[in-house]
C-alpha cells in the first residue's frame, strides 16, 4: 500500500506535516507555511522484495532471481523512498534578501522495497 495504515506492517509511506509556525521558523521562511516530511517505514519480507510500491515489473525480476537462486533470508530488502518531488522555498537570508529556490528530492511521494 502506498500510505501506512493500522492493519499492515508492510513497507509504506508515513505522512507527517511540519508547520513552520510550530518550529518558530515562519519569520524567515515566507512560503510555504510548512511541508510534508514523509518517511518510509515497514517490513520488506522476501516475497515483496523489489516491489517499488507502484509498478511491479522490478519485483517480478527480483522474485524470480530469489526463486532461481534459492536465496534464503540472508539478504535484506529495505523499505526506501522510490519517488520524491522538489519543494519550492521563498525565504529571507541573513542579509534580509529574499531568496527563491527549488530544493530537489525534498518530499517523499512513494516507498518500496529495495
Amino acid at each position, binding site marked *: 500500500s502506498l500510505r501506512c495504515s493500522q492493519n499492515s506492517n508492510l513497507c509504506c509511506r508515513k505522512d*507527517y506535516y*511540519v508547520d513552520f509556525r*510550530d*518550529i518558530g*521558523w515562519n*519569520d*524567515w*521562511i*515566507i512560503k510555504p507555511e510548512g*511541508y510534508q*516530511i514523509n518517511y518510509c517505514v515497514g517490513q520488506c519480507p522476501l516475497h515483496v522484495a523489489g516491489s517499488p510500491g507502484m509498478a511491479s515489473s522490478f519485483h517480478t525480476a527480483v522474485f524470480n532471481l530469489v526463486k532461481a537462486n534459492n536465496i534464503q533470508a540472508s539478504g535484506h530488502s529495505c523499505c526506501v523512498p522510490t519517488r520524491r518531488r522538489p519543494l519550492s*522555498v*521563498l*525565504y*529571507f*537570508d*541573513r*542579509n*534580509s*534578501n*529574499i*531568496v*527563491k*529556490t*527549488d*530544493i*530537489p528530492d*525534498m518530499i517523499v511521494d512513494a516507498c518500496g522495497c529495495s
Partner: protein
Amino acid sequence: AAAEPRCPSCAAGAERRLLEEAAKRQLLEKLRLRERPRLAHAVPRAAVARALRRLQAGGARRGPDDDEEEERGYEIISFAEPEPTSPSGLGLRFQFSRTQDQDVHILQAQLWLYLRVPRDLVASLTLRIFLAGGEGDLVGGNRTLLSERRLSAKGSGWRAFTLTPALQSFFGGERRTLRLELESRGNGGDIIAIVNASRSHQPFLVAKAKVREPGHHVAKR
C-alpha cells in the same frame, strides 16, 4: 520514545519532536545554511509584496531539461541601503551571502528605482548607473558604467534598469558587498530629488541565477 514514561501521547510527542528536528536539519542542509538566518532588519511588508510581484512578472520558466541539469535555479531580491557619496551621486549598497565554492551564473539582473521626474522637464536629463569598485571607491574611483537612460517628463514611478551582463563580474568574484552609484546629467534636478530611496520606496535588485553546487557530480555518482 523508549525513555518516555508509559503514556501514549508521550510517544506521539517524542515522534513529533524528532520529526521537527529532522525537518530543521534537512532544510538547513538543502539550503546550504549553517544555521537559521537571524534577520538583520525587518523588511516592510509592502516592499516585500511589491518586489515579489516584480519577481513573478519576470519568473524564469523551468526549461524541459532543468531537472537533469546539475545546476540549481535561484531568484533573489536584494533591498538597497542608500549610501552618501558626492553631491551629484547617490550610492546604493547591496549585501550578499556567498558560499565560497558555489559557481554562480547570472541569467537576469534588474535594478528597480522609484523615479520622480519633474513634470515641467524641458531640457534633457540622463540617469547613469555605475558599478563601483571595492570599499570607498564610490567617489568617481574605478567605476564601470552599467546603464544609461534619458528620462522623459512622463518617466516617474517604478522603473527597471537591466544590469545583467556586467553584474556577472561581481557575482563571479569574492566580494559580498555590491556598490552601485547613480548619477544624473542635465539640469532637471539632482539625483536625490529624482530617485526616491526612502524606506517606503527602497530601491531593490531582482536577479535570477543558476548555481553549480560543488561536488554535485560526486553526489550523483
